[in-house]
């Protein structure tokens, strides 16, 4: 089946829904396609808040937010993006409120704000209340509110359509091919502009806060075209996932006064970040936790977790402002934060890297600023490099609002200026080949088994601490898994709702993401932000103050070609010189 829209949005999480809204406001026809139902997207799992210098609780300025973002990113953040972000997010939060988002409130009726990791006043002097929140289900409320606004705007939704290919010819994107899960049919979407906003790929790790559906599909499709993925070595582990399960426990828990303790009951963060302690940025807290565990001060049956302690807080705060995670801890661990210590461990959470874009969301084809005409990206899928080497808590929700909006605006403007570019004669050819291969392969291998081995090996070899030998081993493991993947066959012959086929395709995408992440990490011989190498423990600005661009070698598909892109070290009005990062 064939469809035609001026602007097509892939993904219906926060970035996609914001992009779709703004594209529609630009007066063009818009459709949004998602492999889920829109309200199932993982933006809904974000808990703690959205950071904006509203100053409702304490004095705050966008410059301080910009500084925290740049320093939090270990100076790999592009400062032009950080400046736009820190300014725009203030307006954007008010806009969400005007869309009806039910924020928690202060006594004076303004939006409530609380502390979060790495958010400071006065360029690092002390923690500041910057996170605007709706209890501890801020992402859920953003997702619902944006979906509601799209219902109001009459956006065309194509639910449970799984994008299998991007049509890019002569440097311009012309549309996408998608597999309709309900019917098993292929659909071609012809568009003047396409916005990619389909989220991250946390499912390449065994312990993750990410949904089962976050398998890096569009990143992989982009990469398979010989186009680069940026900064894939920077993968964030959130310090507090529920032990064994990896389910997110918001940083808001520490923002409200929660304290991390080891098996001796010691508040260990005092040793690692004396100024802001438990509210240090995520990379630092995650490493501190793993260090405690490695040195034998872990808790739990396998001594592989630490405790978060809320027991000194009033019950109203715990059950009111932290209701969601209170419920999660009670349900899954049988631990009640009101009276029990809750066992947590770092969990794979967020990709700082992804499809490179400029500050308007336009996708980049190399490190020199060449763009892919008509193709935009936003949200976790994209790397405008707001987050650099480590993302501050609350900046993901901010990112998808600010840059989702920009992608929507600029894609609509572009679509108004151009005619439809011609589609190739047989746009579905590659997808048909892929599906045929999966349906007809020997079936000697099971995709679930390969996925499990990928997740375990990535966790062991490209996790919070990395080193050369382990990552070289991982390169070989991925090669072997890719070879085995060619033997994966789909046994369910059903045409309708063939979720086995969908999962098999997703595994192919995950293998690509893992390959690019591992190659990028092996190549970067320094420690910066979330990329911490045991064999190169220092940050090395002389050699590595640059973004990695990883390309699939189309001539030799097991090889990854590494290129670079300079970091923008200046904003429009502000610039922060790289300095040692201490808290």
């Amino acid at each position, binding site marked *: 089946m064939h469809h035609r829209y001026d602007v097509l949005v892939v993904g219906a999480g926060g970035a996609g829904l914001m992009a779709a809204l703004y594209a529609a406001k630009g007066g063009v026809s818009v459709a949004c396609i998602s492999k*889920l*139902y829109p*309200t*199932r*997207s*993982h933006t*809904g*799992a974000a808990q703690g808040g959205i950071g904006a210098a*509203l100053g409702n609780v304490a004095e705050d300025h966008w410059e301080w937010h910009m500084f925290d973002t740049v320093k939090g990113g270990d100076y790999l953040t592009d400062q032009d993006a950080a400046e736009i972000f820190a300014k725009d997010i203030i307006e954007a939060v*008010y806009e969400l*409120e*005007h*869309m*009806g988002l*039910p*924020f*928690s*409130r*202060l*006594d*004076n*009726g*303004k*939006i409530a704000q609380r502390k979060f990791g790495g958010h400071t006043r006065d360029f690092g002097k002390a923690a500041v209340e910057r996170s605007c929140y*709706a*209890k501890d*289900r801020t992402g*859920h*409320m953003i997702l*619902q*509110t944006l979906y*509601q*606004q799209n*219902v*109001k705007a009459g956006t065309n939704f194509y639910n449970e359509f799984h994008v299998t290919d991007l049509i890019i010819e002569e440097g311009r994107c012309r549309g996408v091919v998608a597999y309709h899960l*309900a019917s098993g049919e292929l659909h071609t979407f012809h568009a003047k502009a396409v916005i990619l906003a389909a989220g991250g790929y946390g499912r390449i790790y065994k312990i993750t806060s990410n*949904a*089962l*559906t976050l398998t890096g599909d569009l990143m992989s499709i982009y990469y398979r075209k010989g186009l680069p993925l940026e900064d894939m070595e920077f993968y964030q582990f959130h310090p507090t996932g529920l032990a*064994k*399960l990896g389910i*997110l426990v918001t940083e808001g828990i520490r923002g409200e006064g929660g304290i991390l303790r080891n098996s001796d009951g010691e508040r260990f963060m005092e040793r690692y970040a004396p100024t802001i302690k438990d509210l240090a940025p995520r990379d630092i807290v995650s490493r501190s936790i793993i260090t405690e565990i490695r040195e034998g001060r872990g808790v739990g*049956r*396998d001594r592989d977790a630490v405790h978060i302690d809320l027991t000194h807080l009033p019950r109203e705060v715990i059950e009111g402002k932290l209701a969601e995670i209170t*419920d*999660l801890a009670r*349900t*899954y661990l049988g631990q009640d934060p009101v009276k029990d210590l809750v066992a947590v461990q770092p969990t794979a959470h967020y990709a700082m890297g992804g499809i490179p874009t400029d500050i308007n969301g336009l996708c980049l084809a190399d490190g020199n600023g060449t763009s892919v005409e008509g193709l935009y990206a936003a949200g976790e899928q994209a790397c405008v490099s707001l987050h650099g080497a480590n993302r501050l808590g609350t900046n993901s929700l901010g990112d998808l609002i600010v840059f989702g909006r920009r992608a929507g605006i600029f894609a609509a403007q572009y679509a108004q200026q151009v005619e439809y570019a011609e589609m190739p004669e047989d746009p579905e050819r590659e997808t048909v080949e892929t599906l045929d291969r999966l349906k007809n392969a020997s079936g000697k291998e*099971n995709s*679930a*088994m390969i996925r499990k081995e990928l997740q375990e090996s990535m966790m062991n070899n490209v996790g919070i601490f990395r080193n050369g030998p382990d990552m070289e081993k991982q390169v070989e493991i991925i090669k072997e898994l890719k070879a085995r993947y060619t033997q994966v066959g*789909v*046994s*369910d012959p*059903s*045409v*309708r*709702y063939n*979720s*086995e086929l969908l999962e098999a395709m997703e595994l192919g995408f995950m293998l690509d993401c893992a390959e690019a992440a591992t190659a990028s990490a092996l190549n970067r011989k320094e420690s910066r932000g979330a990329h911490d190498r045991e064999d190169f423990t220092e940050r090395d600005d002389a050699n590595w103050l640059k973004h990695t661009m990883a390309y699939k070698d189309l001539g030799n598909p097991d090889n990854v070609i590494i290129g670079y892109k300079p970091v923008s070290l200046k904003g429009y009005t502000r610039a922060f010189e790289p300095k040692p990062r201490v808290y």
Partner: protein
Amino acid sequence: MPEYYPPSNAAPNVPMMHIKVKILRFNPEKDKKAHWETYPVEAQPADRVLDVLNYVKWFVDPSLTFRRSCMHGICGSDAMMINGRNQLACKTLLRDVVKEGGTLTVEPIRGLKVEKDLLTDMEPFFDAYRAIMPYFINESPPPAGERLQSPELAERMAQSSNCILCAACTTSCPIFWVNGSYLGPAAIVQAHRFIFDSRDQATHQRLNIMNQNTGVWRCRTAYNCTEACPRDIPITQLIEEVKRAVMYQQS
């Protein structure tokens, strides 16, 4: 076939449970009607029902079909009937629903067309959602900052805005089963979310929708919805609040 399939994600040193999972299967491409299939599984008491379903799908019968995504009760994908009660598979732990040697039954939610196995057609459910004008309406020009709202008035929306649209409530409602035109509990909860938002200006229009014969008066206070809600929303109470608001508007 082994006596029991091995555990999906076993942690060491934890005692295993041996259970049978009885799943209502239906593939319209080959089945005339639904039938039960039973899978013996070895699992841990703290495993979720979803872990067991995933295990069966990944390692035993890949054709088993159901929706799932976040695995921790926030996306709303995996509402299904577990031991005769609507629940989210990802928020239901084995130790709470089955004993060693016991049988767990899993069926699709009722009142929506079954497309395949546990996966149902959600369109009628979302049609009802869209019918209540589920979006904030305030046509006055917004201020430079936020519209002010007291914490107490903000709290008025805390329960209704907790809804994840999983459909567990609506598909547990006997009225919805027999009368497909009833908007159902979830849509009324969504209406409540806006009716009691001090900033919203379309209360009157929404109450009119609630007052139609597809609206709140169909509710017979059976409390099935409240019992089914995985987010502990007191749905029946919220429906009663909407009924009262409709009556006050008329008087």
